């Protein structure tokens, strides 16, 4: 958008890491769309193309013992968190090697190892979980935090308001990470909210709130770093509104009657990857060869993930009711 960069570039290695993470998500999503068309992936598929800077930037400042709750548009967060790409792809194939044994699909990626608690497909439904995870952390005397991703559509849900208030009243270490991509499915924010400046809603609960350029990975990372520092110091919850845009349809069923192509093309011009790439090139941190090498590395990882999913197996129907309950017994 502007030539002035408020956030300085990190060193070359870190800069290329951020670019690589965003490209992993972008290419994974493109492959997912292709596999959806090929009917390898079924059900609903919500892609994160355009929003990669947010998951990438936020995860930079989280620790292994922090907890994450995301939405049905969560491939990007899962990948950036370190959930195995093959397990995510196998999940979307419905295979039992999937991270959720094929029970959840695209919308329900879970991974206990990385404390990734979904994959929640009820808009707003994951927010209270993050409050509880933060509560557990605080009661256990830990400085681990909980991060909850949700879209701007969730701001209309009661659970958003209840949760912000509860987290603020109890001073809980929750980062409310709002990904404002402008549309709740097909409903533009201004058509559904009387107050479209979302940080003001959070501020009304005495939650520290900031609006952030969600298309700039460095802006996302910087705001997250400051937010997480506050959380770990016990200064109460933080709300970050990441202003972003999804370049693709809401889901694969969406004909996008509610927005025009000009708008999409305008946003694409300042997409998170093209902007960052251009900045790296102008700082001479990136050249064609380096980019090609990163792309090749990403392509290999995706190829391996697809192969893993293809080779996966179906959970036996006899296991259908397994894990409705834990059978571990009382203790």
């Amino acid at each position: 958008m502007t030539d002035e960069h408020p956030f300085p570039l990190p060193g070359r290695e870190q800069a290329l890491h951020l670019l690589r993470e965003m490209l992993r998500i972008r290419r994974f999503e493109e492959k997912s769309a292709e596999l959806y068309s090929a009917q390898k992936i079924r059900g609903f598929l919500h892609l994160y193309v355009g929003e990669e800077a947010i998951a990438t930037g936020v995860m930079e400042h989280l620790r292994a013992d922090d907890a994450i709750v995301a939405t049905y548009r969560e491939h990007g967060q899962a990948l950036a968190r370190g959930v195995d790409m093959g397990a995510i792809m196998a999940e979307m194939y419905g295979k039992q090697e999937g991270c959720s044994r094929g029970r959840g699909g695209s919308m329900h990626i879970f991974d206990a190892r990385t404390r990734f608690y979904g994959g929640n497909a009820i808009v707003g439904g994951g927010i209270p979980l993050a409050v509880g995870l933060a509560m557990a952390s605080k009661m256990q005397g830990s400085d681990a935090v909980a991060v909850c991703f949700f879209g701007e559509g969730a701001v209309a849900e009661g659970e958003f308001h209840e949760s912000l208030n509860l987290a603020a009243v109890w001073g809980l270490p929750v980062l409310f990470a709002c990904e404002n991509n402008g549309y709740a499915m097909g409903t533009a924010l201004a058509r559904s909210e009387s107050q479209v400046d979302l940080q003001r809603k959070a501020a009304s609960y005495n939650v520290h709130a900031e609006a952030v350029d969600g298309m700039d990975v460095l802006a996302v990372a910087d705001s997250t770093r400051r937010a997480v520092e506050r959380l770990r110091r016990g200064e109460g919850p933080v709300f970050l509104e990441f202003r972003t845009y999804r370049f693709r349809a809401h889901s694969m069923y969406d004909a996008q009657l509610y927005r025009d192509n000009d708008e999409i093309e305008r946003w694409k011009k300042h997409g998170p990857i093209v902007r960052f790439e251009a900045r790296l090139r102008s700082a001479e941190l990136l050249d064609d060869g380096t980019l090609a090498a990163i792309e090749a590395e990403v392509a290999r990882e995706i190829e391996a993930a697809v192969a893993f999913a293809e080779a996966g197996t179906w959970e036996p129907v006899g296991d259908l009711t397994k894990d409705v309950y834990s059978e571990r017994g009382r203790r």
Partner: protein
Amino acid sequence: MSEAMTSTYREAMKEALCEALDRDPRVFLMGEDVGEYGGCYAVSKGLLGRYGPDRIRDTPLSESAFVGAGIGAALGGMRPIVEVMTVNFSLLALDQILNNAATLRHMSGGQFEIPLVIRMATGAGRQLAAQHSHSLEGWYAHIPGIKIVAPGTVEDARGMLWPALLDPNPVLLFEHANLYNMEGPLPAEAGAIDIDHAKVRRQGKDLSLITYGGSLGKSMAAAETLAGEKIDVEVVDLRSLRPLDMPTILASVRKTHRVLIVDEGWRSGSLSAEIAARLAEEAFYELDAPIARVCGAEVPIPYAKHLEDAAIPQPETIAAAARGLMGSHG
């Protein structure tokens, strides 16, 4: 050896809470007015002073957020007890109970356990009208992934919470609002009871009266009346509404060959309907008479005392149904 003592359902619940808070530092209680106010039914009176505000947490009136926070805290390694004032209010948290508590384990391929107890008051009898008096535990018993228990005696009020907390699954505990003042025997060493199994509260040979919670005492009273009429009623207290202890139910039915189900919940699509259907499936040829039911009338529970009384099972209506059942031929 047991010293014969009596207590109230309310005091027994409070003792159960104290036992849990004393035994496990991961246990805490949260809900509306559980602290400063002492609990809307005074169950947690005094606990804030004893355990402090970290473990006895007054919540805002945000059922969905604090029930969801309980689920999150359980995922995070705590053992929360969440109190919802009444089952009618729990509908505001139904998203969390169904879409998260009951679902996350299976949907994640078995990665997580949610050792959470949600307590709530249920049932009519206090002239609180239609938004505080319903018996919706049967609805919850429809949902796979959660367990449902309902204490009908003082001893069960004392003994259900601890095993429910030890369960790695979410357990909903339904306390009948009309029982809090009920007195009953409570041995000095009373503790955990068997929440997996129904309990035969009264042995009998003529018919099996299957009930739970707030209808248990009424059913026992009806059985006493009927005993004077030479009708020998066996009373089975379900204790657990999900899962149902079918072996105990079937054993009773095989003995008596007649069944009367008493449930304060509405009749249509109900827990009583489920039990009747299972008996039709599993014990049809044991039955000497059609299965009978006494259920809540299919109305929003009204305020006026005579109408409220008429809307829910009473000893007289239970006894009348039993007489009708004994009059029918097999």
